[in-house]
């Protein structure tokens, strides 16, 4: 908008405002009706569905699949999808959510046309509808998939049932420890800065993996604290990586 358009808008607006009604009681009346509706909806939902409390938090179990609240599903889903498309892993590390947030912040600065009627703003209309459908779709698919930090690797058939259980537990530790931020494991994780771990068992023996985790080269963080506080999880982790032939 240039100066003339700004002034035209302000002039037009002051006429419209002068022809309007006082905020109190006209707008306040509508707002109050809406407030009552909101309150009724909240009480209705609360009375109908209540609030459950699951089993107590237990840091030693790793067999729990983490679920965020529903309004974060779309975020989790974006991260999961981006990580699984190799071309986009760089984008995912720059942070698709960060980019979206910046775009949202700056909207008034790159959309500078004076037009306000949506039927005359085809780009805004398309972008708005696309965003709504994308968020609805991602929330829906996010509701039906695991979390982005799960590792979809299956244990080799040659293992015994007990070894398979340890394999799965180790995969969960990897998912919950943030390794996927820097390493690829099968279809999951980011390609870099760390090397892929999909076949790490071929390259390093379990003892070597364990010492890497205790004394890694920067920028990889040390997991010595995990080994000390949770030897069981650490053992599962090493075992899992060692099996990745």
């Amino acid at each position, binding site marked *: 908008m240039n100066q003339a358009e700004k002034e035209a808008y302000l002039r*037009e*607006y002051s*006429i*419209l*405002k002068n*022809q*309007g*009604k*006082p*905020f*109190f*009681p*006209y*707008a306040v009346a*509508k*707002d109050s009706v*809406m*407030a009552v*509706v*909101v309150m009724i*909806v*909240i009480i209705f*939902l*609360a*009375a109908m*569905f*209540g*609030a459950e*409390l*699951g089993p*107590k*938090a237990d*840091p030693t179990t790793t067999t729990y699949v*983490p*679920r965020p*609240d529903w*309004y*974060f599903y779309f975020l989790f889903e974006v*991260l999961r999808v981006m990580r699984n498309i190799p071309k986009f892993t760089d984008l995912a*590390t720059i*942070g698709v959510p960060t980019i979206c*947030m910046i775009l*949202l*912040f700056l*909207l*008034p600065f790159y959309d*500078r046309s004076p037009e*306000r*009627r*949506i039927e005359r703003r085809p780009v*805004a*209309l398309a972008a*708005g509808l696309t965003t709504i459908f994308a968020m609805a779709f991602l929330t829906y698919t996010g509701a039906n998939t695991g*979390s*982005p*930090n799960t590792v979809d690797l299956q244990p080799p058939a040659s293992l015994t049932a007990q070894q398979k259980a340890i394999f799965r537990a180790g995969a969960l530790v990897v998912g*919950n420890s*943030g390794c996927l*931020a820097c390493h690829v494991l099968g279809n999951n994780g980011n390609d870099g800065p760390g090397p892929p771990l999909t076949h790490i068992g071929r390259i390093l023996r379990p003892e070597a993996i364990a010492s890497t985790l205790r004394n890694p080269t920067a920028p990889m*963080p040390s997991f010595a604290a995990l080994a000390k506080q949770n030897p069981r999880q650490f053992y599962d982790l090493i075992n899992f990586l060692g099996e990745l032939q």
Partner: protein
Amino acid sequence: MPKLPSPPLPKALRPAPRRPGEPDEKQATTPIEVAADAGISVVDWIDERTSLSGGIRWMMFRKVPRGINWFYTLGSATMFAFLNQAVTGVFLAMYYRPDAAGGAYESVRYLTDQAFLGQLVRAMHKWGASVMIILIFMHMARVFFFGAYKYPRELTWIIGVVLLILTMAMGFTGYLLPFDQRSYWATIVGVNINGTGPFLGPYLSDFLRAGPEFGATTLSRFYAIHMMLIPGLIAALIGAHLYLVSKLGISAPPWIKAQEEPELRQTTL
């Protein structure tokens, strides 16, 4: 100094100018009149010291343009959902203990199973969060499709985006507090994902965890952020948001065009 708008009283109720021959000031005689006078003098006393009435008149009796419709109630509905969170949150805080060793879970269990209406209040807080998120997105969609973020309301929009992020952050930090399996593991993963973000990511997740590991102080930190830091910020920013809305005037629906009416000239001059 521009003239402040006055209350939109119907003609019959507006104070009439004193007629010649009437006494200067009517003496209060009945108890009701005395009580009303006492009330007025208290209000006057406060107003003499604060000049609040000017601000209230400015806020409440400003005009909203023609054509305002139900979509314009979504912002205040969001604010109302926030008030619901604040009030139910205070009651939850009366029972909650941020103790990762088991106290937190136990206190929520007590609240859910035993405290009078505890289950209902907790459910209202929980579902209120979802309702607030839905309303804030609907409000944002209304602002977007009406082009209401354009000149001169850009700053209102930016404060709005901050409010959106803070509201999501409330959802995230509140999720850990019951300290059951679900909240614990979801939060661990959430914080780790945070750590993969660009630039500030690792620092942010270290800040949230209160260190490189998810430990006993993590819960108190989430508690403090959820109970004091973010609610304070949200309340302050809602104030700034509403100040800007009143200052700039609420935008008219984009399809309404001003007609130059002959009466208008008379009323504005």
